[in-house]
């Protein structure tokens, strides 16, 4: 996810690698006890026998309602990722070109919301977006609208809340990448007769693509499993994977199906993650080829 860089010195690599791997042990223990072992325990649950021998997976793929929720979630994930791209890319570009002091201020403004609980931020959106909320009242006072707009308890509200909370995950890696790009490359392109647009699209933009791809998929994947904000701002009207899981676990008490759905979500995420890594690699190779004829 960080900027493409050739790793440092390879001298004494063996010894270094040995020491580094022992430092991984604490993290691996926590991951194993807290995630991998419980996950393994969940697998038999999802394979509880039914008529066909595929456990709850048969129901997952034969009943259209579950697949439609998966599709709905993927669509919302895509919307969130694209919106983050459209708003986040120019913002990151702007921040990366600020002077050192202004840049820190801008980054703090992006990071600041991280310090506020996600619940508080989500409920704040109710105050802002409600029928009697700040936004509707202001718009009506200004005469922009005659009737209050319903933002809440539909996809629009869920998307606004979700994008607000996930956007820093897109902006921060992009700023890191853009800051590490040598500004002289664009200058060189300009001096060789490229127009500003050409210099941007043919020199600058391709350098940001690997990071852009991974950040884009990060937002998409995070939205797939997003729970708190859709649950609160959706008013039960915006079905997504995580809220479906909550329903299956607590209300319907259909744990085999919940387990099957979880594994499906995990697998889909892994595939997407690999796809993102592959795409980023391909774009890097293409650039290398261009560079080396």
């Amino acid at each position, binding site marked *: 996810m960080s900027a493409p860089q050739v790793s440092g010195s390879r001298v004494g690599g063996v010894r270094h690698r040995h020491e580094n791997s022992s430092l991984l042990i604490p993290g691996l223990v926590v991951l194993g006890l807290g995630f991998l072992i419980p996950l393994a325990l969940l697998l038999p649950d999802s394979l509880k026998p039914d008529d066909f021998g595929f456990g709850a997976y048969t129901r997952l793929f034969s009943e259209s309602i579950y697949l439609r929720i998966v599709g709905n979630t993927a669509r919302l994930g895509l919307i969130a990722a694209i919106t983050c791209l459209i708003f986040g890319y120019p913002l990151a570009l702007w921040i990366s070109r600020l002077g050192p002091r202004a840049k820190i201020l801008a980054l703090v403004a992006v990071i600041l919301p991280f310090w506020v609980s996600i619940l508080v931020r989500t409920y704040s959106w109710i105050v802002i977006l409600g029928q009697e909320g700040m936004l509707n009242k202001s718009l009506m006072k200004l005469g922009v609208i005659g009737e209050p707009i319903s933002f809440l308890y539909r996809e629009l509200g869920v998307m606004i809340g979700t994008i607000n909370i996930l956007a820093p995950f897109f902006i921060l890696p992009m700023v890191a990448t853009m800051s590490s790009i040598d500004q002289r490359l664009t200058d060189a392109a300009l001096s060789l007769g490229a127009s500003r647009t050409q210099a941007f699209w043919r020199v600058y933009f391709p350098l940001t693509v690997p990071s852009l791809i991974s950040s884009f998929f990060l937002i998409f994947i995070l939205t797939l499993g997003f729970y708190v904000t859709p649950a609160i701002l959706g008013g039960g009207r915006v*079905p997504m994977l995580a809220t479906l899981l909550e329903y299956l676990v607590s*209300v319907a008490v259909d744990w085999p199906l919940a387990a099957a759905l979880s594994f499906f979500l995990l697998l889909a995420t892994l595939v997407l993650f690999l796809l993102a890594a592959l795409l980023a690699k391909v774009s890097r190779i293409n650039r290398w080829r261009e560079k080396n004829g």
Partner: protein
Amino acid sequence: MKKIALFITAAMLAVLAACGGGTSDSENPAEIRILESGGTSGESIDAGYGKPFTDATGVKLVREQPGDLGKLKAMVQANNVTIELMEIGGPGVEQARADGLIEDLDWDKINPDPMIEDAKLPYAFGFQSFALYLAAREDVKPVETWQEFWDTERQPGKRALPAYARYILPAAALADGVKPDELYPLDIDRALKSLEKIKDDVILWEAASQTPQFLDSKEAVYVATWDNVFAEDGYQVSYENGIWNISYFVVPKGSQNPELAYKLLHEMSKVENQVTAAEVVPIAGPSPEILEHLPASIISRLSTSPDLQKTQAATDRLWWAENGEEAEARWQDFKLKNF
């Protein structure tokens, strides 16, 4: 470096072990934990039953919430039942029993005062009757029937309904003109068709305590709710035509101290304690005599008052035990297609 890593690992394992190994003295407990639905109903448990129970036994009552079947199943399966009693609605009781999650009660040990028949199941103690009732914002036309609740021409605006099939489907059927005493067997098709008519104006709630907020923020004009929206707070409330249900306490399988739970249930069967609880929030306890002990102002709001019973629809626990899964699935499917 390796030693440090190993040391950190060992330290973390020790912390994990310490967290898992909490012990409790089940012989002589200082407190009893119960899982209940919270809100004003929870406050009435403290006043009505918790206080006399603590006075009699010296044991403190600790309430936890919210409770759902998933939590119960997780506790029972993990063999780590931390509560002695759990509150579940009638249909949920049957599901919990079918899944083997609850114990039969020893009614001899509970030794209850007289109780209505519906409240005394071999495996569940019916501790209160409550009803889903109708309420409106101050500045809109009042709502007294489900037909009016559904009529978006008479009163435009959003309506908040419970997100649960076992309440929203009966409400929809009643709105379509089904008579309260003919509600069961429930016609799921008819209920869903009725819901389709107002699908664009529905907000769903998961906890009744959300409903006053919907009215205050003008997010909704009408709400169907229980125990949280009152006329004293400036709302227009109608207890007529409600959908009533009994809420039960059950003993989870493998609970530590059923004897203590029985003592608390005994307190819940006493009519004087039920009167104290009903003064906190108008919900009826299971005594057949409770109406004789309450002032008319509270009775007029109790779901078990004879006047209201004439207009109300009862929830058929056994129908839901039989058909609940299908009804839930169809409701989920409907939500996805229409919302």
